[in-house]
């Protein structure tokens, strides 16, 4: 199996604080990799470095063997790397359908061909399909801002999938979602994964969610990887238990 994402020797410091310290790992095609760790362990910084939102001080990121360090997030996205955000990030004044079309339109043709092309960039049916997949069909004409928190989370995930990405990075998808919606979200992510053999990386606090969803888990503490393995291994690993519970 080939590696979709390779991260090698990544380091990021803020002033005197090293948030990510010499981290290397790879993500194989079709797997769901979980990254867990206590607050402040550097998960989000790692994510932002991989995604081009922050520039790492050292190290390299490759997507399908191609070096992407320093690439702008929009170019990275067009290479097939997609993400969701920890805090809600939808476009509240656009309809649910427009949110999804937007998520796909920049992958169609050039900027000028889009100007003279169809208003929905030929993505109307695909958007409706994605909306139906996430069971939001009854809401497709509503403004995204009028949706409930959980529905917006689903929409956020749907947007990440809209362009048929090679790799999706999910930043705390379960945060703030109630239990029913959580089950719903997990179910949809698993269904999508099964259908497309998609590759996911998930950062999450909610252990049950990670254990149920992921095929492999990395544990981060103080900017370093301290453990790696299947969810079962991780659950029993004394180093992990100590990192989480302290002394």
């Amino acid at each position, binding site marked *: 199996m080939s590696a979709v994402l390779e991260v090698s020797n990544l380091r990021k410091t803020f002033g005197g604080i090293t948030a990510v310290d010499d981290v290397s790992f790879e993500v194989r095609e079709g797997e769901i990799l979980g990254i867990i760790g206590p607050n402040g362990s550097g998960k989000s910084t790692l994510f932002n470095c991989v995604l081009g939102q922050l520039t790492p001080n050292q190290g390299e990121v490759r997507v399908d063997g191609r070096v992407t360090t320093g690439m702008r997030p929009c170019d990275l996205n067009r290479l097939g790397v997609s993400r969701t955000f920890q805090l809600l*990030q939808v476009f509240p004044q656009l309809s649910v359908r427009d949110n999804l*079309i937007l998520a796909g339109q920049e992958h169609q043709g050039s900027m000028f061909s889009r*100007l003279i092309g169809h208003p929905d960039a030929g993505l109307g049916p695909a958007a409706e399909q994605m909306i139906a997949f996430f069971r939001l069909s009854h809401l497709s004409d509503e403004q995204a801002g009028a949706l409930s928190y959980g529905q917006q989370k689903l929409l956020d995930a749907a947007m990440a999938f809209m362009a048929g990405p090679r790799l999706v990075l999910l930043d705390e998808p379960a945060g703030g979602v109630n239990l029913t919606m959580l089950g719903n979200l997990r179910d949809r992510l698993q269904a999508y994964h099964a259908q497309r053999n998609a590759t996911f990386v998930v950062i999450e606090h909610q252990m049950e969610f990670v254990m149920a969803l992921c095929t492999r888990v990395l544990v981060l503490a103080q900017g370093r990887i301290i453990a790696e393995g299947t969810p079962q291994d991780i659950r029993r690993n004394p180093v992990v238990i100590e990192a989480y519970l302290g002394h």
Partner: protein
Amino acid sequence: MNRLGIIAVVAAAIVAVALPFFLAPFGIYLISMWTVLTIAAIGLNLTLGYAGQVSLAQGAFVGIGAYCVALMTQAGWPYPFAFVCAGLLCFVIGWILGYPALRVQHHYLAFVTLAFTTLVFLVLRNEEWLTHGIYGIDGIARPTLLGWSTGEALDFYVFSLGALTVLAATTWWMLRSPWGRAFVALRENPIRALSLGLDTRRYTLMAFAIGSSLGGLAGALYAPLVQFIEPSSFALGLSFNLLLMVIVGGSGYFFGPFVGALIAVLLPEWLRVTQGYYLIVYAAAVMIMMALCPSGLLGLAERAAKAVLRRDPPPVAPLRIEVTEP
């Protein structure tokens, strides 16, 4: 757009066509001025209302367009060519002015564009070899197009109304295309937009350039309408006024600039009873409106229409999301 909106637009269009036949020359001059200001305000609405980039430079672009047309036509170039040049020149300058917008946002951008407006004013005033300085440019001819002279007030109104119609339709069509969606995305959440593959840099520059070129085209109509231009017409005051037009009409509403410009043109006439105090009344009205309904008159109309037509429970307030800059 719902049915009520279509009826309103059709009715307004009929009034716009029929009105000049009932007006004295000064009235026709006023509604011609309305078409010109509306074009400039549509441009600013694109930059500010849709793409969310605050600009206090629209008045400067009207000035650049006006001077461009005045100087070129007096040098013997045909008007249509000068008209296109005014638009292109402002497109290029607007594109360049957009670069600061890539680095800074909100209030900083307001100040950069404000500085730009003042610089343009200084150049217009000081470079007398080109612009005749404070004496301005006099005797700007109204164009003759394919043998049709627009010298009379009514003819010029027909010409400028035609220009407004074409430019507004073009803008409408662009806003319906994926570009319109991209501009709104830029306004609402640039970081998320970037992560969805949207080249926010190019769209920001494009929003600035197109908005500015509409300002330049408005200037290209302004010069032959008033037939005399001078630097102080394009100082900061005009940029502020255009900004107020967009906001008062309803920023981010396609027809907002039409309403805002109409008020800016008519209010001084209506408030003539208050004599010199009309600016005080206007300023107070704007402040009250900002406090009660910052989405402008069309925002107010939309709220009223919803309340009357639907009579269903008020919609859930949109969730406000704090966007942090990277």
